[in-house]
């Protein structure tokens, strides 16, 4: 078991929150507003309407829906990229759209996204160890500590230490995704946001990454928000599933319940399309 000590000085109120949800999304409404010069008609487009959910510690929640349904917009909103029209997002008890940017910057490292395209997520001019070390910058570790932590992380994501001084283009897709995960873990996150983490990988590699993510979750007490169109992946990783269609939640509940007893016919359609063999039927 690898131990990762926290050097991050969080305010006390954040630390005793363990009983409360890591992430709580309340009545979130998202949309794009295209403004034009001098009040000429501006166009509005609603994407997500009134969504609420919470992620408890050590829980993985999957947001499932077709592409274009606004799953990624929710992730952007949680990462404070896209301002919601209505609603609140609490991360570690902080209302992230209400607190000042300087305060958000303090908790931002505990919120790590992993996107589908590992090729563009890594700076092509940085070697692997530089990229991972970069993630630990805010921990203010000594050089030796950082080096040790780097080795721990590499071991954890099952990357050979020899790859350390390679550049991203020298790695395979699976290796790159492992580096991205290691970099995300380097910051000691509380919540991982996984946005289609496997869609660029082939099956065998994908299974390896699933395995990795699953063991990470157990070892590090991680909470995850999984964003995917693939129920099969959700089935593998998520404790609960939320199905989105046309901007609203049409189905949600524990994974098993959704898969075995979907309440909405669209959910059934998704299950069918994913080729999941229902054990009960």
């Amino acid at each position: 078991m690898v131990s990762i000590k926290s050097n991050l000085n969080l305010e006390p109120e954040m630390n005793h929150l363990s009983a409360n949800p890591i992430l709580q999304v309340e009545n979130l409404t998202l949309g794009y507003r295209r403004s034009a010069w001098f009040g000429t008609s501006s166009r509005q487009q609603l994407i997500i309407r009134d969504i609420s959910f919470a992620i408890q510690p050590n829980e993985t929640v999957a947001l499932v829906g077709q592409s274009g349904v606004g799953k990624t917009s929710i992730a952007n909103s949680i990462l404070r990229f896209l301002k919601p029209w209505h609603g609140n997002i609490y991360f570690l008890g902080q209302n992230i759209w209400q607190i000042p940017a300087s305060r958000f910057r303090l908790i931002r490292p505990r919120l790590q996204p992993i996107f589908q395209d590992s090729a563009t997520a890594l700076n092509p001019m940085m070697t692997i160890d530089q990229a991972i070390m970069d993630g630990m910058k805010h921990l203010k570790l000594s050089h030796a500590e950082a080096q040790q932590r780097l080795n721990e992380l590499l071991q954890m994501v099952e990357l050979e230490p020899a790859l350390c001084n390679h550049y991203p283009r020298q790695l395979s897709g699976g290796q790159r995704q492992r580096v991205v995960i290691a970099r995300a873990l380097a910051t000691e996150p509380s919540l991982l946001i996984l946005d289609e983490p496997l869609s660029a990988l082939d099956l065998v590699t994908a299974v390896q990454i699933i395995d990795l993510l699953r063991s990470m979750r157990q070892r590090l007490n991680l909470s995850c928000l999984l964003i995917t169109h693939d129920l099969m992946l959700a089935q593998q990783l998520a404790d609960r599933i939320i199905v989105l269609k046309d901007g609203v939640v049409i189905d949600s509940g524990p994974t098993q319940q959704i898969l075995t007893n979907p309440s909405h016919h669209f959910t059934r359609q998704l299950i069918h399309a994913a080729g999941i063999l229902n054990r009960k039927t």
Partner: protein
Amino acid sequence: MSFPLLQVINLKVELIRPESSKSLLQEVNFELRSQELLAVIGESGGGKSLLIKALLKLLPPHFKVSGQIIYTDGNEQPVDLNHLSEKEINVYRRRKIGVLFQEPLSGLNPVLSCGTQLRDAVAFAREVSFAEAHEIALNLFATVGLLEPAAIYCTYPHQLSGGMAQRVALALALAGQPRLLLIDEPTSALDCIARREFMDLIQNLRQTQDLTVFMVTHDFANIAQIAAKILVLYAGLPVEYGDADRLWRQPHHPYTHLLFTTYQTLQKGETVAPSSPKLSDSASSSNGCSFAPRCPVVQDHCYPNFPSYQLLPDGTRLYCHFPLSP
């Protein structure tokens, strides 16, 4: 009446560098009967896309392609595509063989409307006037399941959704009424439902348009039902090639076995067995079996020796020292 439309014999692709050359594909042998669907599966980087480009002679000059690609169309004389001149093969590209690449959107010219591109392609392939080509193009859009052909005609590629772009690209591939359609990972950019729809469309076209399909994919959910033959590529070598049903039920090669069992466990919603082999991405050894470092049943013999070729009685071709017994 199924005759081999395409027969590939000992295809080999090498990357020629001034100092060295590297073999990217070797010993590729398969045949594709008329109206069949052949699925090629394997890891990314295994040479699947390369194979499609090699079939159409689309590789840049520093790739050396050897072997035979024999195309036989009904009563015509068989032709070896690999030994045609650029001008001669253009005729085949135009009228006999359509191709659909992996990223449908980047395969479309961004500054021309979808209709213009299809019209041009149709006019060139079928040698008809632009006015006629226009009509044909509208029909083609309808054929690939686009609901408003006239609207699509004027649309530019960037305005399309992933699924629509895929269909437009398919229409382009069908511009010359090809007998053979080569498809490269058609579903990787689509979500589950769109995948399903696209596969249905392909099935449909095969029947209505008399199409033979060669498809590179790793969408196991769908190929199981529609593919007649499966070719498993690993590190440039077709480790197993045979009847789809048989392969699906009882894979001989450890790699095929690994793929299918992994998929099946996933499908059942079971967690992947912790005993699943410890997979490593490290480079394959130089002369031995490239799968050896990851093989669950590897033996010492595998490392120094190139996998032995076996032709099983049911026509399955296999490259393995120790195939899993039936």
